């Protein structure tokens, strides 16, 4: 058992060790300083020239957002066309069919918004062409979109009183060429050497020990699996994601994939500090997020390594922990750690079946996505955290008797309005569709969505929308989700859950940046102090807990207490 915990600790420390210098590197990249990847500059210049982009043109926050939305819209239509016609496109050795319009809608949106909810199975649902031009492509650009949006916020607080916040296309391209691509190549190489397929050949036939003939899917998977983690995307090559032996063959690939997915979210926190020259702020944000992460991961590991009490009662040995739905090559602790990592960060790739988690662990994964601000996805994690920061600054500012200030700018009605609307959006797009689904299933139990009745069925529905809203993409499974209702409703939840939480914080940052800069005095609330961090933590917990407590009570908590 202790070796397993040590393995978990090792993964965490390794991530932190890599993330700090990497954060410094990221800050230098966006700042335009000299870096070791400057050899990419000619390629970037060529791209700017082909696209007719003036990378030095300064944009205000509205121009940034317009650029972001336009470019995303183009990708969406491209993805839709490819997915609905993939059956007749090249690189389809297995002869997989084209997608239905609603599945294509759900899939295109889902990959576009960095969620990667997969209502299809990679082996049968998509072709190699789609995997490369839709999935892998969107893995890169959706991550870069989130990072570029965050850099706009960085810029807003680096300079005093400004409306020019850099060039969106430059931030976007640098994210791809200087950050995502180089690291993805390293990760993909490690994975390929450890046995992840990287081949254009179709299904392979093997004869199992029982003598059955089995068709094994493969494909150019290593590259996609690298970026799926690095970009906190999570959409895997194979249906069962990183639980699949070819997607995540052993403990080493497990560590590699684990570190790869936390790397950028954590590095971005430190990049923030280096970029605006407030390193202490980075550490306090990191501390709050880590406290939240530990609060989620410790119970999960505890409940998973102690196994399911119901099974223990049957007299079955559970010394390995709760192993239902888990891979023996990872063990219960590493799987529990993955379950929380993948839900706090919006990756959503899985190496075990979340449906089989013990009820308390299920609660923790749900809570991780409901809060969605501890580390969080590529770029967007800090944007979510930023919303809580604004609300905390406002309440705490009042408590010290000064009109609230953030980075030297007054936080007033307009910013509070945007922040509370974004904070309200998350429960709205989780609770309302869940209520509609619950209403549907109550009035017509024959819909056949749920494999499990009762509280667990409720958790499955709640999980699906929570995962969509948080742009996470993992599933509780057990839910018959490839239907028109689930594809379309999740699609809309995905869109709202993606773009509004990006636009909101960027708008607040843009508005704040244009305000008069006020120097700090001893009456100013320091947002990098320990007291303020504790307040932020309390605000995050209370807002998330208060909105979702009843839903959690009726789902996993009812399941937990009823046994």
């Amino acid at each position: 058992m202790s070796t397993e915990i040590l393995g978990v600790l090792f993964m965490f420390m390794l991530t932190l060790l890599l993330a700090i210098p990497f954060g410094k590197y990221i800050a230098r990249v966006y700042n335009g300083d000299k870096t070791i990847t400057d050899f990419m500059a000619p390629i970037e210049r060529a791209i700017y020239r082909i696209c007719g982009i003036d990378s030095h043109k300064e944009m205000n926050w509205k121009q940034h957002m317009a650029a972001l939305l336009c470019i995303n819209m183009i990708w969406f239509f491209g993805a839709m066309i490819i997915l609905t016609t993939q059956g007749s496109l090249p690189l389809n050795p297995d002869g997989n069919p084209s997608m239905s319009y609603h599945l294509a809608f759900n899939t295109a949106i889902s990959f576009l918004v960095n969620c990667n909810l997969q209502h299809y199975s990679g082996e049968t649902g998509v072709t190699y062409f789609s995997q490369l031009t839709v999935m892998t492509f969107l893995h890169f650009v959706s991550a870069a979109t989130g990072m570029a949006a965050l850099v706009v916020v960085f810029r807003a607080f680096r300079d005093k009183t400004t409306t020019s916040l850099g060039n969106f296309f430059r931030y976007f391209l640098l994210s791809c060429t200087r950050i995502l691509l180089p690291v993805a190549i390293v990760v993909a190489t490690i994975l390929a050497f450890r046995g992840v397929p990287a081949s254009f050949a179709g299904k392979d036939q093997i004869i199992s020990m029982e003598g059955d003939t089995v068709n094994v899917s493969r494909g150019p998977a290593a590259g996609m699996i690298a970026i799926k983690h690095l970009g906190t995307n999570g959409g895997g090559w194979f249906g069962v994601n990183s639980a699949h032996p070819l997607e995540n063959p052993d403990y080493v690939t497990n560590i590699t994939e684990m570190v790869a997915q936390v790397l950028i979210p954590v590095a971005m926190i430190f990049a923030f500090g280096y970029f605006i020259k407030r390193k202490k702020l980075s550490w306090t944000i990191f501390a709050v997020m880590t406290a939240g992460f530990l609060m989620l991961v410790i119970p999960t590991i505890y409940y998973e390594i102690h196994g399911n009490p119901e099974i223990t009662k049957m007299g079955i040995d559970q010394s390995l922990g709760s192993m239902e739905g888990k891979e023996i090559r990872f063990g219960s602790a590493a799987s529990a750690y993955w379950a929380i990592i993948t839900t706090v960060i919006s990756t959503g790739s899985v190496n075990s079946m979340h449906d089989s988690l013990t009820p308390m662990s299920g609660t923790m994964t749900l809570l991780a996505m409901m809060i969605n601000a501890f580390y969080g996805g590529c770029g967007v994690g800090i944007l979510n955290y930023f919303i809580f920061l604004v609300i905390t600054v406002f309440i705490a500012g009042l408590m010290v008797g000064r009109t609230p200030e953030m980075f030297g700018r007054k936080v007033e009605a307009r910013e509070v309005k945007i922040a509370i609307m974004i904070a309200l959006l998350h429960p709205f797009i989780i609770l309302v569709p869940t209520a509609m689904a619950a209403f549907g299933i109550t009035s017509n139990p024959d819909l056949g969505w749920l494999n499990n009745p009762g509280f667990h069925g409720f958790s499955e529905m709640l999980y699906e929308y929570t995962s969509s809203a948080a742009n996470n993409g993992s599933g509780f499974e057990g839910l018959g989700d490839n239907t028109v209702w689930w594809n379309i409703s999740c699609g809309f939840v995905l869109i709202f859950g993606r773009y509004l939480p990006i636009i909101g914080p960027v708008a607040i940052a843009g508005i704040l940046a244009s305000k008069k800069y006020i120097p700090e005095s001893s009456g100013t609330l320091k947002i990098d102090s320990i007291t303020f961090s504790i307040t932020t933590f309390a605000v995050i917990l209370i807002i998330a807990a208060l909105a979702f407590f009843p839903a959690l009570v009726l789902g996993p908590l009812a399941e937990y207490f009823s046994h």
Partner: protein
Amino acid sequence: MKRQTSTTLFQKDLVIAAFKESFIKLHPKTMIKNPVMFMVEIGTVIMFIVTIMTLFSVVSGQGSFAYNFLIFLILLVTLLFANFAEAIAEARGKAQAESLRKTREETPATIIYSDGRTKRISSSELKKGDIFIVKAGEIIPSDGEITEGLATIDESAITGESAPVIREGGGDRSSVTGGTKVLSDQIKVRVTIAQGESFLDKMIALVEGASRQKTPNEIALTILLAGFTMVFLLVTVTLKTFGDYANATLPLASLISLFVCLIPTTIGGLLSAIGIAGMDRALQANVISKSGKAVETAGDVDTLLLDKTGTITIGNRKATNFFPAEGIDKTEFIRICVLSSLADETPEGKSIVELGKTQKVEVSTKDIQQAKLIKFTAETRSSGLDFPDGLEIRKGAFDAIKRITEKAGFSFPAEINNHVKTISSNGGTPLVVTKNSKVVGVIQLEDIIKPGMVERFERLRKMGVKTVMVTGDNPLTAKFIANKAGVDDFIAEATPEEKMNYIKKEQASGKLVAMMGDGTNDAPALAQADVGVAMNSGTQAAKEACNMVDLDNDPTKLIEIVEIGKQLLITRGTLTTFSIANDVAKYFAIVPALFIASIPGLQALNIMRLSSPETAILSAVIFNAIIIPFLIPLALKGVQYKPLGASALLARNLLIYGLGGVLVPFAGIKLIDMAVSIFW
């Protein structure tokens, strides 16, 4: 003596008036201004309908009539409590302002028409621009400006200061206030303000709510609270379908109770009371603010401009020592000094005579009856006497006197030169005296720093407020006093332009500046400052330009105003925190109660061990209602402000109101449940 302004928190007549007002305020048109309480009102109306329906058994699954009726009643009481909080704050503010206004209503006025006729009319008939005459013993009928004459006036009716003040036409002290009494002489006054537009009228209107506008900060907080209300509306509505899925029947009464308990009714109910009480506290400090925003802005002030004289130091400079020149007898020197100052009406002159008395040197006024008085001018920078026998005495600034002596061919004595240097470098002012153009000695004038000022500046520094001393002194003297008093910066040899530039410079770097002034030449700076406080004795121009008027003419009042402003924000912040933190306990009371019947396992969440689902819900709603009146005194008095620095203050308030807000309702709900379960 100060007017007794702080009434007890709940005066009987005010309570009765507020009680009536809390019912009137139930009108939806009034309620909708407060989104949180408006939602409670909607809930109450729904509960009323449900109660009626259960009475006639029209619906099933909604629980007993008694249960529904009780919930309805408690919700109604919650609304009334919130309305009462606002009403009592308004009533107190109004009572304060009325007591000030009463003094000047319906006083007779003698109006002078342009043709010279006079007529006795009532003060309410006076119009802006009218000229009236007031004789000794009469009450001044309206605010105005003296056009002619000089009078001593008893302003104790509004300031509480019993010592009479002198007011005269033309100059910085020409303004008179309605309701004050002329003690001697007679003055002609031009009415400067139309009836119903005086500062007090404005203040009363602000308190009454008719013209009360929400401050930017209040608006932001209201938005935040409305956001929370929306979240909980969402939680409650969706919970209904979740309940149906789980086969738990949820009566409307329970859902509405959950909703009302979760939305921030505590702060929602007290929000406007806190704002009104802030202005009321300013009024108690004898400061009339022209808007609620001004008080709030005061809490944000970064830089405070204070006049040296009267604020930092006691009145004016005083003579503290005589240094005769070599070969001059000390008594003789003192005699010359006193002689030169007898006709001098300046405070410095008087202090020289006083100091002379303590040194047993007395001179009769007869001695100078024949002498010709040479007045102080900015050019000569000296004053003195010319006696018929040819004796000339001069006293004045060092450089001015030096010029006189050198012009007359005398050398300036070295030891006097040394004295002058020592006095100057110690923050004093040397006053050199000559007899027939020959230096006979030097008088030391010194500033005395008011007791307690050093501590107050220290307190301001902890609040993060920079203090700036404004003085006409030379930089050397100014620096010395600034250091001694502990102010952060000073403006020496200050002119109105210089003040203005300083304010602009501070504002350009993003700071909020407060200043106090009284003269006409202060008006531009007062208008430029973010918080301008004019003294009531000041000119009309100054009073128009400012956003607050201090009735006491007390320059240290700025410090109090800053604290009142901070207190206002802190009270709002802490009660918001308290209100939201309360929800944790309420969840643990209500959520298990809602589902225990269908999911018995959830009894584990009933950590307070409340006796039954009904009592649990009733207790939570009752707690939610009675916490409002419990906190009314806090809302009216304001949370105590301690200058600790932002982080320490946050830690303190978070511990008391955040952690307290989580814990108190656990105890409160449990206690109420124990009481309720006796009857249920």
